[in-house]
């Protein structure tokens, strides 16, 4: 079976983003970028399915400008077989991303699409669920275990109360949580090999979808700063301050 893995280029998770002085957006100039950590977990899961003889082909796909080819090459180095870039310079709403992905799902007919549960820049947590709705597929979101069994996939999900396991008919959508797997590092020979794997570029406009924005970003501001606190010298002092100064314990 084919597995499709949508990946997103985002700010490196170790970098603290700055807001532009004119509050129009965040400033990503000269910022270290990387593959969204949840997408990296998605690629790893797909590659493991291939290594287990369950998946036959792993296709990585990213929607963005030319720079996202860097992350597609990373996915290829991690073991994806081929890559598709849908070229656009716009930053699209999750709904429009899902609509483009839907077209590719129709063309490629994967049995499984594995996405990240959330991009760490927009923190949307939407695309997988939207793609599932548009394709009429079931969804296993926030997955920590994925088991393909015949015509179904069993997905264990991280939910507020603990863990929940669902059985989904294939084809299905899975979105990854942090504990699904620990992604490997790409080896140097695999990075070299990835340069020769196929990467197809297709303009977003060719898909015949109305990509008009559905939301408008009015402004971006820095969060309220917390006032610097104090270092207390003893537990006695801490307890005294919590009781009498902060008044949060009695």
């Amino acid at each position, binding site marked *: 079976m084919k597995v499709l893995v949508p990946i997103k280029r985002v700010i490196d*998770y170790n970098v*603290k*983003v700055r*807001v532009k002085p004119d509050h129009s957006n*965040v400033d990503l100039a000269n910022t270290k970028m990387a593959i969204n950590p949840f997408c990296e977990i998605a690629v790893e899961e797909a590659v493991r399915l291939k290594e287990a003889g369950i998946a036959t082909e792993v296709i990585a796909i990213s929607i963005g400008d030319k720079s996202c080819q860097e992350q597609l090459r990373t996915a290829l180095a991690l073991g994806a077989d081929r890559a598709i870039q849908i070229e656009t310079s716009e930053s699209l*709403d*999750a*709904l429009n991303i899902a609509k483009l992905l839907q077209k590719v799902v129709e063309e490629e007919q994967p049995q499984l699409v594995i996405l990240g549960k*959330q991009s*760490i*820049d*927009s*923190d949307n*947590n939407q*695309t997988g*669920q*939207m793609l*599932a*709705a548009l394709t*009429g597929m*079931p*969804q296993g*979101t*926030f997955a920590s275990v994925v088991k393909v069994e015949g015509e179904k996939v069993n997905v264990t*999900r*991280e*939910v*507020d*109360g*603990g*863990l*929940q*396991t*669902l*059985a989904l008919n294939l084809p299905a959508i899975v979105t990854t*949580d*942090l*504990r699904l797997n620990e992604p490997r590092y790409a080896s140097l020979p695999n990075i070299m090999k990835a340069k020769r794997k196929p990467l197809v570029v297709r303009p977003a406009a060719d898909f015949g979808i109305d990509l008009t*924005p*559905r*939301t*408008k*970003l*009015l402004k*971006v501001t*820095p*969060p309220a700063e*917390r006032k610097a*606190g104090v*270092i*207390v010298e*003893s*537990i*006695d002092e*801490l*307890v005294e301050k*919590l009781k009498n100064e*902060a008044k*949060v*314990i009695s």
Partner: protein
Amino acid sequence: MSILVIVEHDNSSLKAETLKTVGAAQKIGGDITLLVAGFNCQNVVDAAVKVNGVSKVLVADNAVYEHQLAENVSLLVTELASDYEHILATALTTGKNFMPRVAALLDVAQISDIIDVESSDTFVRPIYAGNAIATVQSLDDKKIITVRTTGFDAVATDGNAEVVTLATVTDAGISSHVNDEFTVSERPDLGAATVIISGGRGMQNGENFKLLDGIADKLGAAIGASRAAVDAGFVPNDMQVGQTGKIVAPDLYIAVGISGAIQHLAGMKDSKVIVAINKDPEAPIFQVADYGIVADLFDALPELESKL
């Protein structure tokens, strides 16, 4: 305007966070209807009718909604959607699961995790793990929204709404529930607690989390954890606080052996008072702590317990 709020529950009780989502709905302004979709959920309905500011409670009580499968709930909400300009769910794992599905079925964008309402079409939400705050305007006729409860006050519960039983049964028939492994705890929920004490990698193992128990008992606190503590298997996943775990804002948050990575701070930095116990004076957690103590947690915790 009319607003539909989908109730968070486990078939036996209405989750307190729903009261804050209704708080957000009141800030938008309009006639508020609640939807309870579940199975054998009469207790939830009884609680829902008392939520203040609500005129109607729609009830879909059927086995197909027992586990709130996104495929089934989203079809139900979509069928009801034409009567409402705003549809709100709480940004917890259930709402996060079905709501984008509703949005896509309605061909509407979703605004996730709002923390404030500027007007009926403009909302405030954190992005980049809370390191930037975006003001976003929805250009769709309908607004599909998930609400981060730390941004809103809970409404009271002395109301008296009308109950409307729905006959609709929407079963997509493409997914089924296998089982749950839920953590049972006598302690308050992380989302509802006024005091939280969390342990990180510095706790070294699961056994040592017992050091937090006595303090939590004395303070009526919930116990949380960092991702590192969960990944290492010290404690279950539902205890994770952070960008990708639970977002909390209690009156008092005590971080023990947690360094203060941005992803952890994203889940707790709106707490009223933050205390950090860490042996490394350079740990970033001290930059957000109101009270920090540089100490070995294995000395500090027993002493703190004895002095409370």
